[in-house]
C-alpha cells in the first residue's frame, strides 16, 4: 500500500532504552494478512538505525484501530489508491 504505517495510524507508541526499541503496533483488522510482513519490516528498518541492537514489537488491540486514526496524508494516499476512507 502506498501509505506508511505512521500515517495509517497503526503505530501506538515507540520507546527507546539504550540499544532497545519497543514499538506498540496494532493492525486495521485482526485478520490482517500482512501482519507478519509489517512486523518484519518494522524490525528490519529499526535495526538499521545507529545504535539500535534490539527491537521488540508489541501487537496491541486497545484502543481498536478505526479510520479516524489516519492522518490527513494517509487518508489522501489511500484515496489516491482507490480506497474509500
Amino acid at each position, binding site marked *: 500500500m502506498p501509505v506508511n504505517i505512521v500515517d495509517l495510524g497503526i503505530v501506538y507508541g515507540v520507546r527507546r532504552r539504550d540499544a532497545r526499541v519497543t514499538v506498540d503496533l496494532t493492525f486495521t483488522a485482526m*485478520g490482517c494478512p*500482512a*501482519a*507478519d*510482513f509489517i512486523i518484519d519490516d518494522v524490525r528490519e528498518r529499526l535495526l538499521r538505525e545507529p545504535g539500535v541492537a534490539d527491537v521488540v514489537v508489541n501487537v496491541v488491540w486497545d484502543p481498536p484501530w478505526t479510520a479516524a486514526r489516519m492522518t490527513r496524508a494517509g487518508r489522501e494516499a489511500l484515496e489516491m*489508491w*482507490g480506497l474509500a476512507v
Partner: protein
Amino acid sequence: MATVNPAFDQLLKKGDLIESPSEMTPEYLRELKHTLLVSGDTELISAPAYYLAAQRAPSINAFMTGIAIIQDELAHAHIAYHILEELGEDQEKLIFSRDPKSFRYPYAFDVPLATWTELIVANLFYDQAGFCLLGDIHEECSYGPWKRGLNKVMLEENFHLRNGRTWAKRMAQAGGATKEELQTAVDWMFPLTVEWFGLPDSIKTHSTQLDYRLKGKTNDQLRQWWLSLVVPYCEEVGIKVPAHKEGDAYVLDYPFPCTFDAEGKRWDFDDPCSWDDVLVRWRARGPRNAEMVAGLQEEFHRFRKAHVDA
C-alpha cells in the same frame, strides 16, 4: 488485421479505448471474450489450486495470508466474468456448466500444490507470470472497462509476489532440509512457468490479440520479462534456476520444450519433445483439472436443486 473494417482498425491504431459492444466488430468481440475467459478461468482455478496448499500453512498468520491471496484471486476472476456478462455471456453457465477440459487456464495449475513450500513457489513464479501477463494487458488493453479494472488488480497482485519472495528468501536462508524442499519445488515449477507463456514466436507468427491491442508483448517478450524478474531474484537468494543471461536475453539451460511427468513432478531434460507433444499434454489437462472444476460446480448444482428448483 483480422478484420476488414478500416474505421475500426483506425480507431485501434490511434490508441483510442473501446467502451461498449456497439463500437466493436464481431471479430474483436470474439477475441476480447476469449482473452477475458482465459484471465477469468486462470484466476478462478488458482483458488482451489492454492487452497490445497494454504491449508498446510505453518502458522495462523501464514494461513490468513494464503486465504487473503485466494480471496484476491476470486475477486479478480469475478471482474473478468462480470465483464464477460456485460458482453452478453452467461456467467453462471461459464463457471458452473462448462466441461472441465474446456476451462482455459495454464496447465501448471493442474499439477497439485501439495505443501506450503509449493504455494510459496507458486506465488514466486505463477503470480509473477500473472503479473507480467496482466501488466501487459493493463498497459495495452484497448477495452476501457477491463483496463480500468486492472488498475486495482495489479496493485493487489503485488501482495502475492511479496508473499512468494519473502518466504522464498526465508526458506533459502534457513538452509538444510528447508532449502532442499524449496529447491525441489523450484526444479519442477520453474520450467512449468516458462511454458506458461505459450508457443515461441518462431512458431506462433501471428497474434490477433496483438492486432486488437488486447496485449502488447509477444509470447517470447513476456517470457523474457518474467525471466528478467525471477532469475536475478532467485540467484540473489541462493536458489538455482536452469537459465542464465547472455547479452540482453535470458537463455534456458535445458531443451525447450521437453518431457514432463506430472504425477512424479519431474522434467526429463534428456528427452526433448515437440510443441505438438506439449499441446497434446495441455489439451488432455493435468491431474487436478476434473477434481477442481467439479469442486467448484457440484455444490452450485446441489444447492440449486435443493433450494431453488424444489
